[in-house]
Structures are given as C-alpha cells and as structure tokens.
C-alpha cells in the first residue's frame, strides 16, 4: 500500500491527455494557455476543496454551487449599489457561511440525509439568486477587477487564492484535530461521538466552512465575469465540483479523501475542457469525451483500489 502511487489512474489519464494535446496543438503548452487553464479551474477548485473536507466527514453539500450563485448576486447588487468592496466581501462571505450553517443545522438536528436536504436548498438558493437579481443581470464595472484579472509575479490572483485554499485544507486535514475529527466522523460517526468528539458542533463548523468557501468561489466568479447574471453558477457548477472530488478518490460515504486527489480531479476536468477547445473537437463531442474521460479515470482508480481494500 505504501509503495502504490496514490491516484495512479488519474495521473495516467491526465498524462495521456496532456501528451496527446501537446503533440496535436502547439498553443497548448504556451505558458499563457497553461495559466488560462489554471485560472479557469480556480473557482471550481475552491468549491471542490471545501466539499472534499465535508465529504470526508461523511457530509454532502449539493448546494454549494447555488450558494455561490446567491453570493455572486448579492455581491453584485451591493457593489453596483455603491457599497465598498471590503464591506461587500465581508457581508458576502458571512452570508454564505450562514447559508452553509443552515444546511448544517438541518442535517445535524433533523434526520434528513445530507444529499436530500442540500438538494432542496440548492433549488431554493437558485431561486433566491434569481430574486436577488430580479431576473436581470447586474454589472459591477471595474470593481474587483484586480482579483479576477490581474496577476502577481505572473500568476493570476485567482490561482493564488485557489492554491492557498487547497493547501490550507490539505494541512487542516492532515495536521489538525479538526481535520482528523472529520475523518473519524466520516469513518464512523458513532465512534467519533463515543470518543468525546463534539460531533454536532463539528458538523456545524464544517457546513459553515463549506458555505464560506462557496461564497469565496462566488466572489471569485464575480470578479472574473464582472457581472452577475441569472443562471451563473448553480447546480451545473456543483456537479462539476462533485465530479472532481469523487474522481479524486474521496468517498461518497465519508472517511476517505485527499485534497491532492481533488486537485488532480479539478485539473483533469480543466485540461480536458481546454484540450477539447484547442483540438477543435465538435462541441457535440465534447460532452461525450468529457464523460468518457471521467469514466476511464474512475475505472482505473477503481481497479487500483480493488487491490488494496476489498
């Protein structure tokens, strides 16, 4: 087990896609293009990172994409209404954390499965986002321009934020009791409770954190797009994040998960989308190819795991 390269399946598929694309499309390996890819996946990375921690703890938040949509909408309205960026960011993040907390309260104190509860809140929040925007688009002009489009030492700010978030979550999961409690809860909630872990409090914190990260993702999205429009983010975004997380080896049942795997999953999805564009694959084929790549990666991962734990 120690000798086995983790995520070998994912890495193999990723390498194949990269080599193939690099040979066929010169522009793929330009540093500009690589930075593009990394910037494009930043938003998804932040959502997927939060979800990894939550799912490892046996939770699930299907409403993160929709939470991001609400955050985007609220922040856009505030900014276009003349509030300062600082105030907006704080309010938006708080709001997103509260939304996450509400999910947490429902999941912790009622007997509803997390998937069910958050699927319902996802619908609800998609509607709220529409209400906040009143069905129209709201532009924010030049505000938050820097975050969305500028670079620091040649690296896009968005990427810096995303990388920071992932590294932090990775460290938390490995080196803090908060993170280890997540593994314990996901592995066996009953045991976690018997071990004296304050499971309800932990759950609330995890859901609130997932909410806050969804909010951060929403702000990042807003800074990229410069506007919030109906149907930005939402369930589609969520599905991409979920796909990245599960492809990265985090268990739907909890107790197992790595940020490295999630990061690989996010990168794979981003690279495939970029490669399909550069290779000029007909858009109708793009979904087919993306689905097939996901499936192949999952199957290879699966075979690999089959060896280690039955």
């Amino acid at each position: 087990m120690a000798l086995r390269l983790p995520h070998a399946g994912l890495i193999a598929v990723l390498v194949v896609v990269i080599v193939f694309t690099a040979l066929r499309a010169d522009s793929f390996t330009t540093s500009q293009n690589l930075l593009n890819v990394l910037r494009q996946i930043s938003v998804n990375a932040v959502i997927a990172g939060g979800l990894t921690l939550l799912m490892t703890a046996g939770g699930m938040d299907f409403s993160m994409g929709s939470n991001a949509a609400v955050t985007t909408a609220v922040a856009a309205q505030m900014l276009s209404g003349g509030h300062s960026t600082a105030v907006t960011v704080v309010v938006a993040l708080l709001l997103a954390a509260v939304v996450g907390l509400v999910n947490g309260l429902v999941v912790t104190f009622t007997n509803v499965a997390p998937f069910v509860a958050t699927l319902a809140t996802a619908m609800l929040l998609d509607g709220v986002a529409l209400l906040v925007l009143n069905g129209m688009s709201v532009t924010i002009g030049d505000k938050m321009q820097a975050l969305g489009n500028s670079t620091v030492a040649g690296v896009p700010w968005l990427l810096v934020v995303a990388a920071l978030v992932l590294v932090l979550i990775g460290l938390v999961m490995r080196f803090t009791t908060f993170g280890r409690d997540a593994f314990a809860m996901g592995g066996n909630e009953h045991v976690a409770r018997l071990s004296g872990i304050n499971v309800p409090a932990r759950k609330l914190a995890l859901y609130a954190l997932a909410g806050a990260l969804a909010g951060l993702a929403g702000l990042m999205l807003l800074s990229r797009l410069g506007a919030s429009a109906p149907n930005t983010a939402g369930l589609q975004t969520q599905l991409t994040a979920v796909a990245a997380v599960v492809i990265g080896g985090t268990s739907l049942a909890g107790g197992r998960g790595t940020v490295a795997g999630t990061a690989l999953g996010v990168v794979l999805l981003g690279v495939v989308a970029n490669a399909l564009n550069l290779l000029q694959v007909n858009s109708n084929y793009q979904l087919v190819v993306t689905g097939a790549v996901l499936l192949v990666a999952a199957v290879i991962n699966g075979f690999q795991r089959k060896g280690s734990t039955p």
Partner: protein
Amino acid sequence: MSGPVVRVRGVTKTFGGAAALRDVDLDLHPGEVHALMGMNGAGKSTLVQILSGVHQADRGTVEVDGHAQPGLTVRRARRLGIASVPQRRELAAGLTVAENIMLGDLPRRHGVVTWSAVNSEAEQALSGLGIDIDVRRAAGELTVAEQTMVEVAREVRRGGRVLVLDEPTACLSAEAAAQIRGLVRRLRDDGVAVVYISHYIDEVMGIADRITVLRDGGVVRSAPAAEFDAASLVRGMVGRDVVSARPERPAPTDEPGISVRALSHGRAIRGFSVDVRRGEVVAVLGPAGDAQSSLFDLLSGRVAPDAGQLSVGGVEVPFGKVSASLAGGLRCVTGDRRTLGLVPELSVDENLMLAQDRLERRSWHRGRDLARRAAPLRRRYGVVALAGNPAVGTLSGGNQQKVLLAKWLQTAPVACFLEDPTNGVDIAAMAEIHALVDELAGRGVAVLLASSSAEEVVRLADRVVVVSAGRVVAQRSVAEVSQDGLVSLAVGGGGS
C-alpha cells in the same frame, strides 16, 4: 472501602412501549469488578449504555460521586471518568489503529498533530497490555478479536475511574481472553471500578468481586461473588437449571464429509489440511482471528485461496464461488454476524428464510406463507423478539445469533463450518445451540468448528486439530485432553 463512585437508583428504560429495564439499582465501588449477568435481552447493555450516556433513563437517577447526573451525555460521562467498550465493536474504519486509539485526544504541539507521538503513544498503550498489533494498520483490516483489543487499549489509555466492558471476551481466543482478564485485575488493583459483562460463568466466577443478575430488565439479585455458586447464578439468570452435558452421539460414519487439502492463503493459512467424516465434529483450535475468519471466507466461496482443494461429501467443490459451495451442501456460519450474517433492515422471518428460499429457487414471496414456514424455526431455535416480526437488527445480539444459525442449519447441509456459533449468546441459548449441533452431527452432518472457547470445544468436538502459523501442528481426540490441556495445547502450539 469508600462509598460508591457510581450509584444507580430506580432506573427504568422503555423502547417503543416495551420495558428493557425496570427499577434497577446498581452501585459501583472503586477497586471492584462488578459483573452483570443475564440472558440475552435481559437489559445488560442497556444499563451500561445509560451509565455511559448513550441512552437516557426514562425514570430513576444516576449519581457520580454523590452528584445526580440528569441528562448524562456521552461527552459528559467521559469527562466524569466513565470509559466504555461497547458490545458492538466499532472503530473508524478508514483510520489507522494508532489514530483510533488516540481519537479525541490526539497529541498536538502548537495545535498541530504530531504524528510520531500519535504512533508511539498508541504503541505504548498496546504494548502496555501485551498486545502485538501494528499501529499503522488500517482499522478496517482488523479481525473482531483485534478490534476488541484496540478498543480496550483505547479506553484503558484514556483512563477513568469507571471502565465498562460489554462482553469483551466474546469470540476472543483463550489466550487473548486471559490477557484481558489479567488487565482487568490490574486495573481493579489500581482502584478502577470495572463493570464486566460476560456470558461465561467460569470467567465471571473467576474475576468478579460482585455480581448483579438481571432478568427481564429487573435485578434478580446483587451480592458479593463469593455468595454465588455456578448453579445458583444460572438459576438466577434463567429461572431454572441448565444442563449442557455432552450426550451420547452415534459414532461418526466412514463417509467423507469435508476434506480440505493443502489450503494456503496469505500468511494466515499455509498448507492447511483436515478431514471431517459425516457425523463427526472437528474443532480447529489455534490463534483466533485471522485464520478463523479466513477459513470462513475460503470455505464459503467468498474469497478464492492461493492454493488448495476442497471436497464435500466426496465430491470436488471448486473454491471461490459461493454458489458452488452451497450446491456442494456446505453451509458456513460466520462469526461476524453484523457484516457477513444478517441483513439488519429485513425482518426476522425474512432473514431466517433468506438462504432457504434462494436454494429452493422460489420466485414468489408472500408474508403469510413466510411467517408460516418461519414459525417452527423460531420455536426450535428459541428466537425471541419483543413483538411480532421486527427488523432483525433490533433483536438483542444473542437472538440475532440464533437467527443466523437457524438460517443456515435448517437447510439440510451435508457439512457445515461453524465459526464461534455461540458468540454472545446466553447460557441457556448456548446449551440449546450445543444441543442443535449435537443433533446436526447425529443426523450425519460433518461439522467443522472454529471456536475461541475451549469449554465449547470440549463440549462439542470429537477431535481437535491444533493450528499454528497457518498449518496443522497436532491432532487429538477430545477424549485424550482436558479443557486446561486444550488451552495449553492451543497456546503451546503457537510456540512450537
């Protein structure tokens, strides 16, 4: 002796209208091993679960150090120094042994978990109890016995003034059980109040300072252990005498039953061979755990071995296929009823008939018909539910075990493999199950028994094969050895 650490008064607990505990009193003194005894479903686990904050009593009080503790929660109980190893073995499967032991109390420096300390402290906790398990292993890979050890080590490490052990020695090898008992004595001498639940009379008589007998949720008698003898204890629990003596069984036939040849699988089993004739009961004795559950996996067809042959009733049976094993007339009863034995959500009746109906290739399923066919089994195997035909997961552990046995043994086997068949069942049920095995052998079924209880082996087996390091090192007719001899044979076998 000082006053009690824990004083329980008038505790009553009902589940869905049925009383699991009625008006129970209990005192726990420091430096005393207090045994709880009673039949399956008598309320022992429920009582200790109230002590450890898992359940809250409907009526009555729990006092710790003279202070009433209404609404006791798990966390609160833990803070008050009440540690508990529940009957149902549970570890966080994805984590390592070390982390499971240290869970909730991971060593940190500046808020950062220090992994080296986690491993070394866990190692200390295990080696302090003379347990040899690699702390870096994933908890999910452990056998039931190893899980028990880890759980005990965890609770002991956490310390506390009260330690609850709910059937810690069920399905442990004699050696391991002795280790646990030694540990309990040490803790008692250090002044810990130990609550000890077990169905083994001899064990309890040997270790307890005080015994409380429960029946139907009420206290029958609570007194110093010296005031009990085995017979009165049994009478207290069951309400009558229980005799489980070895009956005259017809001599085994010469027809072949199970024949295992040169079976090898991983480290646990290496070139293992055994022959059981029809009508014969052969016990496999040796370090419980790994080898025992491996045997179940291989014989049931769940897992294909690295090498080996199997024939049942003289007919070759291919390994690695459940259907082949079943078709060959081999029935394997697992020692791990929770993961490999029963479907907890399905009803008692449906679990009882699950295998039988599939073997008969029935395509239709009707509740009334099912109940009619299951009724005699329930009666014969003494399955008792609080009411009607509930999900099997809600039965007490002993009753679940009876359902498991009934599920397999009714299906007219040629041969069967029994892994810890009396795991967690009470003394009366144990006698009934032993009688069932006798009857099975009497009907000409070849029985291969893997039991961690020497007592059981002496009671049931005609012949004993001793396994060490995965291979057979000795064979004895049971008539040749005593129970103590058996234990030393098993332990000594490990050394040779």
